[in-house]
């Protein structure tokens, strides 16, 4: 315990000294995030410095082993770091599918070569990754993917098309599910491969969404050469890793409805928008709906906390990621609907500086995708009923 107290003291002092002032306010939108990568243009000198300093300590990936550039922190130390960052509202120095998704998968399933090659650049924010999972014909039925990887001895030749690839047009490398064996049960012939997006034959095309932005792409793969040592885990065993990554992704997306430290809560925003009468929100019907959301959101936060605590204590049933993803994304959609309702016609404005260039309707529209990406709500409910409730 004394060690942890020392760690807290030192962490606090280090953050005080090293976190630039402008990095001490909540991330308001995607534009405030630092994604890193070969082509990243830092939004400010502070953003660059903050990433560099944190990466040097390995605190962009605090719980990864130090030998791969990570922070080597224990669960308790990692928690303290999070708390101390939240205390000064320090922004995450790096938003990264490398840190969140493929890094943990390489750590768990990858060869020593892959760990040495890929993990340190992820920690330093030098390589930006994208995920090649869905295909035009394989959405909810992901295991039905058709992108072919033909065995050419020491390498594969990959042909096919991926869709909903987040930021493929900005990414440096892709982790990609491909079919290495078409002659077995569909889950048993899939491999997870890694390749550079500048490899000949890789092209991307952004997809414009109802929110007006283009965070996703179509990615076309035409005779793309992938070295065999870039297979994560065993050939044909990619589905296990894909499921592991989907679990990660669900937990991540499920967490999006939560209010980050320093952000205004929904009820505070409602007070700003509607005002109080005798200490109560002036619109009684909206008040009931905000309260219902608030109760659910608070109980959901406690549940995410309980699931972690149970895992730490070695209790609990596990298998909760589908529930967290389902409930968290539905909560976020309800939150966005309430924000739209409480701001009335102001929330309908699409362009104009006074309305932050239509931020409200754009984030509302974007939230509709939360219950689709990473497995739809309906797929999550299928997973719960089949895997947990034994209904089939």
């Amino acid at each position, binding site marked *: 315990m004394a060690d942890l107290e020392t760690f807290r003291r030192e962490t606090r002092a280090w953050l005080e000294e090293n976190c630039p002032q402008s990095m001490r306010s909540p991330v308001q939108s995607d534009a405030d995030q630092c994604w890193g990568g070969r082509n990243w243009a830092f939004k400010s000198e502070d953003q660059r410095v903050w990433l560099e300093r944190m990466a040097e300590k390995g605190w962009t990936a605090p719980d990864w082993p130090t030998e791969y550039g990570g922070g080597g922190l224990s669960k308790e130390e990692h928690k303290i770091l999070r708390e101390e960052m939240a205390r000064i509202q320090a922004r995450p120095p790096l938003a990264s599918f490398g840190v969140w998704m493929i890094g943990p998968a390489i750590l768990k399933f990858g060869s020593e070569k892959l760990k040495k090659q890929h993990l340190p650049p992820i920690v330093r924010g030098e390589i930006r990754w994208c995920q090649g999972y869905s295909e035009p014909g394989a959405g909810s039925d992901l295991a039905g993917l058709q992108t072919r990887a033909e065995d050419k001895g020491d390498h594969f030749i990959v042909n096919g098309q991926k869709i909903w690839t987040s930021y493929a047009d900005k990414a440096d490398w892709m982790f990609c599910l491909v079919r290495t064996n078409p002659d077995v049960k569909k889950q048993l012939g899939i491999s997870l491969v890694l390749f550079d997006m500048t490899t000949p034959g890789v092209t991307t095309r952004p997809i414009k969404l109802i929110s007006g932005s283009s965070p996703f792409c179509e990615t076309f793969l035409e005779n793309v050469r992938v070295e065999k040592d870039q297979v994560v885990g065993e050939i044909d065993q990619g589905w296990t890793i894909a499921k592991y990554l989907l679990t990660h992704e669900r937990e991540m997306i499920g967490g999006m409805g939560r209010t980050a430290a320093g952000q205004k809560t929904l*009820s505070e925003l409602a*007070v700003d928008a509607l005002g109080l009468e005798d200490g*109560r929100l002036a619109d009684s019907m909206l008040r009931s709906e905000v309260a219902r959301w608030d109760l*659910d959101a608070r*109980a959901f936060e406690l549940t995410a906390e309980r699931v972690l605590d*149970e895992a730490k204590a070695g209790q609990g049933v596990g298998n909760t990621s589908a529930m967290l993803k389902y409930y968290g994304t539905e909560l976020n959609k309800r939150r966005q609907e309430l924000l739209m309702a409480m701001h009335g016609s102001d929330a309908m404005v699409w362009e104009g500086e006074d309305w932050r260039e239509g931020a409200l309707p754009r984030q509302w529209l974007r939230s509709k995708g939360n219950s689709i990406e990473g497995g739809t709500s309906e797929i999550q409910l*299928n997973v719960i*009923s089949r895997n*947990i409730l034994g*209904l089939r």
Partner: protein
Amino acid sequence: MAGLVLNDEQQMLKDAAQRFFADRAPVSALRRLRDERDATGFSRELWSEMVEMGLVGTLIDEALGGTGFGNVGMGLIAEEAGRNLSASPLLSTAVLGASLVQLAGNDSQKQALLPAIADGSRLTALALDERPRHAPRHIETRAEQNGDGFTLSGRKINVIDGHVADTLIVAGRSTGQPDDSEGLTLLLVDRDAAGVSVQRTIMVDSRNAAIVTFDNVHVPADAVLGTPGKGWKPLQRVLDIANAHLAAELLGIAQESFERTVKYLQERKQFGVTIGSFQGLQHRAAHLFSEIELVKSAVLKALQALDDGDERTPEMVSLAKAKACEVAELATNEGVQMHGGMGMTDEFDIGLFLKRARPVQQLFGDYRYHADRFAALRGY
């Protein structure tokens, strides 16, 4: 801080309570009490066994004959009692009576009452509500100073176990208007005292609540619980304690209804397949599963907040009760619907869970009451 998990001792208590209620007070025991029109409404033998197991003294300090296991412990007991629809004076006596005396009583009252509650020799009941929808400050019952003592007049409803309680704890108004927080006085009144009349009412869940009328009942000065006129503060705290345990009971009811329903979906066949293979039912079941997970977290948090003296306890309790009411209502309604025609029969137990859930929801405030209180506590 251990986090939102049970420690080993609490886990052991939960296991013991689970075995005890399933074995000694299962749903069939409630049916027997109902069908035999039992005058007490619960089994005194069961109560003695609960005393022996130390369950009754869970909230009472060890020095006064209890186990001092705290609210997390009592919540686990309430949850298991909820799963089995076990009828007993657990709430009226071991929760409400024990907590109120401990919070507001003077030393001699504690010495006289708490060991007697823990050893099962004394039953208590809280006479609070006067309106069918919970409104704890709406008290018209007069508790007027009369020499050293008080004179009590008025009418109380929904007095849980009022027909068997040895001691009634009555909230009367000494000054002010109905709905004022000031001026409430808590009085200990013998059920047999002159001027007290008790009318037993059998409720939809086959349990008991009483209508109690006080007609110029003389209450001596030493039967005032706490400071005259200052009863609102301990009452509020006791209502938070009780609501956390009611939420725990609702969690037990919701889980048991749900598990029985899932089992039925796995067994019942139509169109040549089990009805659990239909996605229309699967998704409703999976949604309900998620909601119950949320209730588990909210209930444990409220119970821990009570034990830790967390300043946000009222907010946590209203969160737990509101969410537990909402989900128990959904779970019992879905339970009956998914059992189809069988759900409408008295022969199947599922209807008994529906019938128990509603009075527990109503007692000391339902979803609406606690959602409103939660919002007010959160500043809107």
